[in-house]
């Protein structure tokens, strides 16, 4: 396995809702074990891009490949089973189901024979105590941990996180940052993260891809965001 092998590759992807094009001609390569942050102001198409990558939205044109395999025509379920783990904005835990059932549902990501709960509890010990509780009754931070833990119960090769810091208290955001680093360092997981939280980006990202009006308009090193003017330009603060 060459370390520079592309885990995820987008070629001139255009997508949107109905006839409204939101993502314009995006090309992007993410290498195995890389943590890439997608930044940009609100409404520039970051979440739509994520939904296109996981297969929730079919692209109007262009191609999405995952480990060299063209998945453009595959639906979200089949991409998930190939190892694409997705943590959406707003977390989308199954509120009426228990924490244990939510975790069990992660098994199909990457096609694990059974949910690997030990691994999940290693990262998020709180979930072990909450197993029988309805997921909807937990706090935002706990739900975020559940949403990440859910895909880690499977065998993802790449994880896509859409604003994991949103509505989560700062110490848990820090913890999530540490876990993302560990997943990459220990398991060579590839991470694509949409984020507005400067400290989380700084803690995890190898590089930042800048989106504006649906297109990728550039790339900067995370350190560049330490300059307040640069940060103000690319993040909605």
């Amino acid at each position, binding site marked *: 396995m060459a370390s520079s092998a592309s885990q995820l590759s987008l070629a001139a992807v255009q997508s949107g809702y109905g006839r409204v094009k939101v993502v314009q001609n995006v090309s992007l390569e993410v290498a195995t074990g890389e943590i890439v942050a997608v930044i940009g102001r609100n409404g520039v198409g970051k979440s739509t891009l994520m939904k296109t990558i996981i297969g*929730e939205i079919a692209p109007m044109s262009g191609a999405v490949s995952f480990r060299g395999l063209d998945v453009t025509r595959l639906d979200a*379920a089949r991409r998930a089973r190939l190892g694409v783990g*997705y943590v959406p904005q707003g977390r989308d835990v*199954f509120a009426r189901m228990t924490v244990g059932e939510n975790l069990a*549902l992660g098994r*199909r*990501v990457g096609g694990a024979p059974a949910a690997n709960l030990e691994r999940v509890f290693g990262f998020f010990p709180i979930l072990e105590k909450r197993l029988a509780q309805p997921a909807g009754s937990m706090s935002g931070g706990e739900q975020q941990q559940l949403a990440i833990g859910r895909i880690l119960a499977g065998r993802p090769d790449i994880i896509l996180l859409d604003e994991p810091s949103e509505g989560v208290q700062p110490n848990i955001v820090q913890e999530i940052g540490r876990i993302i680093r560990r997943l990459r360092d220990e398991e060579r997981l590839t991470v694509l993260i949409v984020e507005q939280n400067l400290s989380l980006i700084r803690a995890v990202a190898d590089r930042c891809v800048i989106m504006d009006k649906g297109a990728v308009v550039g790339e900067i090193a995370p350190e560049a965001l330490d300059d307040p003017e640069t940060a103000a330009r690319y993040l909605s603060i």
Partner: protein
Amino acid sequence: MEWSGQVFSWIYQYFDNMAFLLLAASGLILIYGMMGVINMAHGELMMIGAYVASAAFYVGAPAPVAIVAAGLVAGLVGIAMERLVIRHFYNQLLSSLVVTWGLSLILSQGVLLALGPSTMNMPTPFGSFSVGGFSFGVYRMVLFATAIGLIAGVWALFRFSSFGVAARAAMENPRMASALGVDTKRVYTATFAIGSALGGIAGALFAQTAAISPFFGQNYTPMAFITVVMGGGASAILGLVYAALYLAGVQTIASNVFNQYVGYVSIMAAAFIGLLVMPSGISDFVQKRRARRMAR
């Protein structure tokens, strides 16, 4: 002596009426609760089950085999219905009502054309017993026990199995379920097939108490429909049990105070009053009250 027979008779009728509602509505409420579709052709699946069971019975199959065969055939018909028609109408209550009503007419008229209007009969098994001078059919009690067994089985399937967890996830948030690798289309097809098979089994069970004709299903669809609406979609299985307890209770009292016909009509009156108090059904009402109590 006669007094004990009378009391037993009331209890017996209550259980018999409950069995009727539980069996007629179980498949229907499963499909409604999981997928937001009311299948007006459910009675026709029961009719198909009744024909399959009696055909199997007359070629010499034992009754349990005939009943399983009825469930299998109705399940397969359900898969075809879901793939060809229902799939396009999920969570569209009104469109699904019209479309499945059309399916119901096609199926019953189709069987009428193919098999003619004459009725068939199956013998009622198990004979009878008497309490305090009253005589009771054993089979009615078997029906009740079977209804409870089927419902408990379906509940356990959706509560504990990996399929059940995936099905509930697909119901709560289909997009997220897909993003986790759940094949939601297959889950819907399978759920619809299970609901249809329950209809076929119910048809086979009722075939041993009633005449079988192309319009067999029409004896059951209205009551099943009322039971489902009264039960509500918040919790399909609990709703079904609540609705059956309530409606069968009213029916049993009304048919003893007045007569059988009034008892039958009283189900509609009971549902009318029940829905005024609990517009989205009993299970929804109970769930909201429980949530309010927990919030306090």
